[in-house]
């Protein structure tokens, strides 16, 4: 009996160690969310509102160095893509609003940031690092995911997005 108990305890420990976070798989439906727009009281955006468009979802925080690097490059990417087919949506994960407010003043971009200070949506997507981005197709299915940011990542993202935008006519 003791042997079984010890085995069960060890198993529980292993589950805790390995089951901490699991990133959402490519090919699965993106978790739905409805979040307030950062700095715009009363305004909300839900992922379902963007159905029919390819969405690049970027999770960021003001304290994250690579996020600072990513903003101007994502803004350039957004400007390259046709607005009727593509939306870049950012989700800020700062616990306090003062950090992102200053960040957005220093790094002005034309895309919207939503606020998820409790990290609920981040948890649903199973983030394992910052920043993280997900490419979501017109039907709300995750088609690509990236953790961390290097300037050359934008090329891969661009290709994925262009491929998905181009797929509309094929459907």
């Amino acid at each position, binding site marked *: 009996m*003791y042997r079984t*108990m*010890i085995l069960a*305890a*060890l198993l*529980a*420990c292993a589950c*805790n*160690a390995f089951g*901490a*976070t699991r990133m959402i798989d490519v090919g699965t439906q993106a978790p739905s969310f409805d979040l307030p727009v950062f700095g715009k009281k009363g305004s909300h955006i839900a992922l379902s509102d963007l159905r029919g468009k390819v969405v690049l979802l970027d*999770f960021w*925080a*003001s*304290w*994250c160095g690579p996020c600072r690097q990513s903003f101007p490059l994502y803004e350039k990417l957004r400007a390259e893509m046709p607005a009727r087919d593509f939306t870049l949506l950012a989700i800020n*994960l*700062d*616990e*306090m609003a003062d*950090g992102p407010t200053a960040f957005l003043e220093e790094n002005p971009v034309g895309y919207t940031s939503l606020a998820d200070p409790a*990290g609920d949506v*981040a*948890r649903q997507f199973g*983030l*394992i*690092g*910052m920043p*993280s981005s997900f490419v979501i197709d017109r039907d709300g299915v995750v088609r690509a995911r990236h953790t961390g940011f290097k300037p050359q990542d934008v090329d891969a993202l661009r290709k994925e997005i262009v491929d998905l935008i181009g797929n509309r006519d094929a459907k």
Partner: protein
Amino acid sequence: MLNDFFNGKMLRAATVLILFASLGGCATTPVQPWERGRLARWDMRWDPDPLQAAMNDHTHFSKEGSNGHIGAAGGGCGCN
């Protein structure tokens, strides 16, 4: 009672109890990537003031003749 404890079931029960309690430590929720804002703060660094840290290091390696002791290239000859 003590006799029972040391040669019997209670010792085993206590062992299992302690094992469970210690395993409970593994259940602590890890800090998630988006929860590292406070850890990323400047004043959470070992050396929040780089100038002060450089000064301290300079004093240290000058006194000890141990250039490179904090990871810089150098052989510790104290000659530069």
